[in-house]
């Protein structure tokens, strides 16, 4: 099992009942025709605790709302409802100034290292700006700080004179990480940080992330669709489906004993790296439903579930602790 560096009973980050719905198609023509706009339910009543020093993996398929949830936590999207507590402070009511101050402690590494760096700014300038904007270091020390940051992510100091287009994907992702670390944060959202990289480069970046997370006691929300990766990096895992967290458990419990029918299907669908163990039947039929205009008040997984019963279509299951630390939202699973 992956061991968290620090254990504490108090979560660093508390997410309570956070929801986010995007309104689509608010066009003038639609309004003239008297049609109501479509709504896309991205995050639906999510509760989540992340403890200091832990890496929480958030897995799910595209469109399940995992990126939106990550961004809601950082207020890069404003949630429609709910509360987010960071270090005991509610951040959703904070003023812009207060929030900017808070952002020092909460950073993000983006998925695409090609579009997340400004192509017109040299790497050194970019990192300098990140250090200075929060007044963490003095002007006179900033050069040294930038060098230290680059060393920390395994890049040489001469990188600071280069532009993003001169770097490879792996190098860019290291710069993205250095920029996030520049302000000395305690919490990082890593949103699919390696999926844009070549296979042989991915391990370099994963190991760097994991090492730094342990060394700097970072608390991390690691968003990915890759189950093999999530098992490798996380201490606990949350499985998301159609905006809801359907299962949350320590990583070994989830992989050895997945309880929610969707988690089971997801694990069974990940291709095993063993040619002697091949499965012949598809793990699950059907596709994730379109998240536009879904009715609430029933289980989000209902349409694809083999265990579905009457109750599932009239009531929404809640996350319930069925074993210590193992939460599932399914009426068919008994604790």
């Amino acid at each position, binding site marked *: 099992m992956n061991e968290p560096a620090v254990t504490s009973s108090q979560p660093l980050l508390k997410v309570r009942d956070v929801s986010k719905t995007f309104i689509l198609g608010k066009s003038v023509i639609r309004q003239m025709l008297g049609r109501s706009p479509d709504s896309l339910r991205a995050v639906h009543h999510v509760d989540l605790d992340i403890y200091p020093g832990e890496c929480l993996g958030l897995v799910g398929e595209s469109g399940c709302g995992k990126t939106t949830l990550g961004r809601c936590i950082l207020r890069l999207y404003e949630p429609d409802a709910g509360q987010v507590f960071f270090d005991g402070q509610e951040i959703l009511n904070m003023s812009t100034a207060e929030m900017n101050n808070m952002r020092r402690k909460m950073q993000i590494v983006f998925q695409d290292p090609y579009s997340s760096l400004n192509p017109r700014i040299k790497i050194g300038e970019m990192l300098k700006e990140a250090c200075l904007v929060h007044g963490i270091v003095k002007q006179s020390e900033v050069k040294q700080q930038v060098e230290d940051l680059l060393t920390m992510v395994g890049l040489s100091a001469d990188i600071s004179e280069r532009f993003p287009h001169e770097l490879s994907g792996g190098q860019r992702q290291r710069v993205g990480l250095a920029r996030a670390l520049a302000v000395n944060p305690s919490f990082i959202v890593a949103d699919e940080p390696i999926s844009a990289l070549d*296979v042989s480069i991915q391990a370099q970046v994963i190991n760097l992330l994991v090492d730094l997370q342990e060394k700097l006691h970072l608390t991390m929300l690691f968003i990915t669709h890759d189950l093999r990766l999530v*098992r*490798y990096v996380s201490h606990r895992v949350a499985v998301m489906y159609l905006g809801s967290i359907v299962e949350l458990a320590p990583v070994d419990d989830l992989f050895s004993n997945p309880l929610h029918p969707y988690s089971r299907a997801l694990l069974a669908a990940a*291709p095993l790296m063993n040619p002697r163990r091949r499965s012949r039947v598809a*793990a699950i039929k059907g596709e994730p439903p379109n998240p536009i205009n879904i009715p609430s008040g029933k289980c989000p997984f209902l349409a694809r579930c083999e265990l579905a019963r009457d109750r599932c279509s009239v009531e929404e299951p809640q996350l319930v602790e069925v074993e210590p630390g193992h939460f599932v939202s399914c009426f068919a699973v008994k604790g």
Partner: protein
Amino acid sequence: MGDILRVENLRTYFKVRGGVVKAVDDVSFTVGDGEVLGLVGESGSGKSMTCRSILRLVPPPGEILSGRIYYQDQDIMTWPENHLVDYRGAQVSMVLQEPMTALNAVHTVGKQIVETILQHESVSQKDAEQRAIDLMRLVGIPAPERRLKEYPHQFSGGMRQRVMIAIALACRPKVLLADEPTTALDVTIQDQIIRLVKDLQEEMGMSVVWVTHDLGVVAQLCDRVAVMYAGRILELCDVIELFENSRHPYTRGLMESVPSGNTRAASKLIPIPGQPPDLLNLEEGCPFRERCRYTVERCQEKDIPLVKVSDKHYSACIRQKELWES
């Protein structure tokens, strides 16, 4: 078992400003009747261009410089262009990675399947439509009679990829070239597509060349595997042999560098240092030598050919014997 496809010393080069990119460089392999061959490699390793070369559809400025491609023992490199019309689609067909750009957005899905059938066979429009419906049912598209009349944008990613497979299978080809057909899809949908292709392949006795960078997909689907790097095949063998007795540092490096489904404590990832070489004006010698932990001086002397390790196992590492023969 015969070989339906034989590729010998294929060289597909791109002449660009500043030099030559050897996208496919002296590649040889065979595809057996009813066999699934995996082409594994990272982006830029030449796996897609190998597939396109097999169809003689290399986009300019690329060009097949030399080599032989035998389909049912006939060298298609000598065929005139009009001869290839039946070969492409009816004998050997291809499924592309991106189902959104590969389908025509302004025609219904049904029309695109029917068009393929009518192109290759003399059947009536009505019969072709019926075949299209059967094909859509075969690849698991629900309500095919209705969906036949819909446009690509009305299909999800997974359903579009099924349409692509239906088009590729429309004329019962003997070889299916699948160029990362599941890379853009979610894992549960990827799983469905892999099972589907496997079932169809066995039912129709078709041969498949499956291009991927995912070793898990290789383990689940392929009979034999060619590992490509910088335009060359570095290792070629049976799938079980590849996972249990690989004879190339690159293959071994790849396996150690991707999470196998274990926790960190059980097995720590060992990254491959450095990055893939610049393909422009690549120097002679083993293309992997600069990232290889076993490099010796001999590795840069000349291009290293695939050498027989054992029956059906070939490796392009000059040190494979001393390193792993015990």
